[in-house]
């Protein structure tokens, strides 16, 4: 690592990041330097004592608007915002206003009238946060939209890897499982390829999206080949709620070919780490014992890093809005 880079990194850690946009809608299109700065700042937050005074955003109003079920992401955003001193209101809109027939934009403009500074949106439809960003005046964070992107998850995954291994560039990272239905996979592909990692995607052909290799990854239907020499094995949940029943013969067949067990893992780099965005289906995509192996599994660290990453993002969006 060259000296200049290190210096920049040091500077990044102690001041809020300025981004080219005051929204975080997708990783696709983000600059490498922006990602780098967000990760450095998040790393700084991760090292702080949890009682450290980071309340830079008092009076800042955050609406956590979830149109889809979520526990970990919602709580993680809420903690991040609170640690920055912001006021957080959680709104669960699963079915409620949709059932009453209100259009998404009416819901959005109602929320906008309450003058929040930031809207954190999770929505079952790909592209919905973009629609919010077009019509609303506050900042928007995409907390997961349909099958499109989940940018904060990719950032927290990157921070988790960096803190364990030290760098991203040149790492062999295998993303395994239900790629088709996964927004986590898409955000990770964009982020990791932008940062110079070698990304492989492993999935049954029925869950491998069309032309995926055009996103700059290598595709494998054979997990043993796909995770050979991998430094990181990322597993994805089978999203049965987004399937039609024609994708997989059975869970046990899936586990046989695509579930991570000791045998398959032995083909990876001996020091390979295991990641999973959660929630896990033990015995389906990962053998239970591996998930709990604290030497190899970073699953809990991922959750922990979520708060630090989201602090750095919320702070950055506020900073980017004020300065533009």
């Amino acid at each position, binding site marked *: 690592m060259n000296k200049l880079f290190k210096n920049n990194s040091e500077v990044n850690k102690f001041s809020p990041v300025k981004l080219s946009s005051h929204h975080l809608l997708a990783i696709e299109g983000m600059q490498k330097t922006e990602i780098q700065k967000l990760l450095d700042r998040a790393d700084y937050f991760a090292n702080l004592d949890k009682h450290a005074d980071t309340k830079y955003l008092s009076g800042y109003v955050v609406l956590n608007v979830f149109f889809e079920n979520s526990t970990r992401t919602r709580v993680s955003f809420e903690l991040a915002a609170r640690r920055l001193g912001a006021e957080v209101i959680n709104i669960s809109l699963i079915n409620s206003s949709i059932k009453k027939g209100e259009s*998404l934009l009416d819901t959005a403009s109602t929320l906008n009238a309450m003058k929040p500074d930031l809207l954190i949106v999770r*929505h079952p439809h790909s*592209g919905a946060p*973009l629609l919010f960003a077009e019509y609303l005046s506050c900042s928007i964070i995409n907390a997961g939209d349909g099958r499109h992107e989940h940018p904060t998850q990719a950032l927290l995954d990157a921070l988790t890897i960096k803190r364990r291994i030290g760098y991203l560039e040149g790492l062999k990272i295998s993303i395994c499982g239900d790629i088709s239905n996964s927004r986590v996979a*898409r955000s990770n592909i964009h982020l990791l390829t932008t940062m110079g990692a070698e990304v492989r995607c492993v999935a049954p052909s029925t869950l491998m999206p*069309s032309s995926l290799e055009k996103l700059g990854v290598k595709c494998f239907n054979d997990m043993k080949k796909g995770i050979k020499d991998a430094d990181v094995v990322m597993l994805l949940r089978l999203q049965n709620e987004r399937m*039609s029943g024609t994708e997989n013969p059975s869970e046990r067949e899936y586990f046989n070919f695509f579930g991570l067990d000791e045998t398959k893992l032995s083909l990876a780099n001996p020091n390979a780490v295991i990641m999973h965005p959660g929630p896990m289906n033990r015995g389906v995509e990962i053998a239970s014992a591996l998930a709990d192996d604290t030497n190899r599994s970073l699953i809990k660290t991922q959750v922990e890093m979520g708060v630090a990453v989201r602090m750095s993002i919320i702070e950055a969006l506020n900073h980017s809005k004020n300065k533009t």
Partner: protein
Amino acid sequence: MTHSIFKSIKLLNPATNFYQKVNVVIQNETIINISKDLNLEKFNKDNQTIIYDCEGLTMSPGIFDMRVNIGKTENLKFTQITAAESGITSMAILPNQTPNLNNPSIIDHIKRQSEDINLPKVMVYGAATKDLNGLEISEIGLMSEMGAIGFTNGNKSIKNSLVMRRLMSYATMINRPIIQHAEDEDLSGLNQASTTSIRGEMNEGEISTRLGLIGIPACAEVIIIERDIRLAKLTGAHYHVAHVSTRDAVNAIREAKKSRLSITCDTAPPYFSLNESKLLTYNTAFKLSPPLRSEDDRLAIIEGIQDGTIDAIASDHRARSKDTKAQPFSAASVGASGIETLFSLTLDLVHKKIIDINKAISFLTINPAKILGIDSPSLEEEKVADFIVFDENEPHTIKQENLKTSPTPFDGKKIRGKILATYINGQVAFMNHIFKNKIIK
């Protein structure tokens, strides 16, 4: 007795392969004189003659738009008026409206409702199957007697092979075409039983993968066409494929035409003007059925237009309210407006030197009439004065705010060619201010 004289106009009449600068005189509903040398004395006796200086302008038969959806945002009269302003003098409407056009009395009702002789003629496709359910054949013989010009399930595919076979077979007795929206709806995830988790939203490929939208593979179109071609062979029916959008479909139809089957097809401007990359911003104005395809497919549609595999161009008009489009892509309605841009987008093929103007106008006029077995419009002496006057070079920009129907997928597109006047039965159905200023007497 009023005469209208169109002085020095380029008369383009594909039916007789006529394209010359002439003077055209109409009296009441009839064209009474077409000549190179205008004898003003003869027509100017009663001082009620209007003379238009048509230097640089073109006259052709009015457009026959063979595929129009009357959606919830419109009523028939509104669509007729908008059509007249867009150069359309006849249009065929699809049966999938509320209520369905699935019985003889409703066909008769629509015809009577739209009989205003000063507005575009409305022709009706009857529902091929009862309630468009695809299971039982509707009374296509009786509907045909009431004037239904063809039978289709509208924007749904006729899926069941036996039903399609019977329909085609029966249609040969009444000499009407079966019009198919070709899409394997099990494959595209759009059959009625499909859960929202698999409903196809756009063309399948790199872009659907990037956007996280559910892809419809291009072959969903040709799978149905290939089956139907075999059934057309079995039954001898006239089979027409609507809004062809893929290379494979064009190839399959091209091959089938070689074996002298009675097979025709049309396409619509989005499929030769746009491709799937337009969806990259989740703009719902581009959410169409069939979906916008790849650039290679677009080029194949153009080849099909050039070599005559594709017979006609229709608007495939399916206007939608702003409310149903201002939604996340997955939740937004399908379809876009088309009648207002049909003429200029087809003329764009001429400006891009893809086809000549004679062919372009044929695609919009005599070809659809031939497909549907209707008298081909022809501008000759003693014929009815149903025609349009246009300036093929008038530059303008398509702007949503200037259109009466929405959404247009062509907002902001710079284009040349403008309708200046539409005459139906010798009466002015539409005339814009530019043309009004052309009156020299």
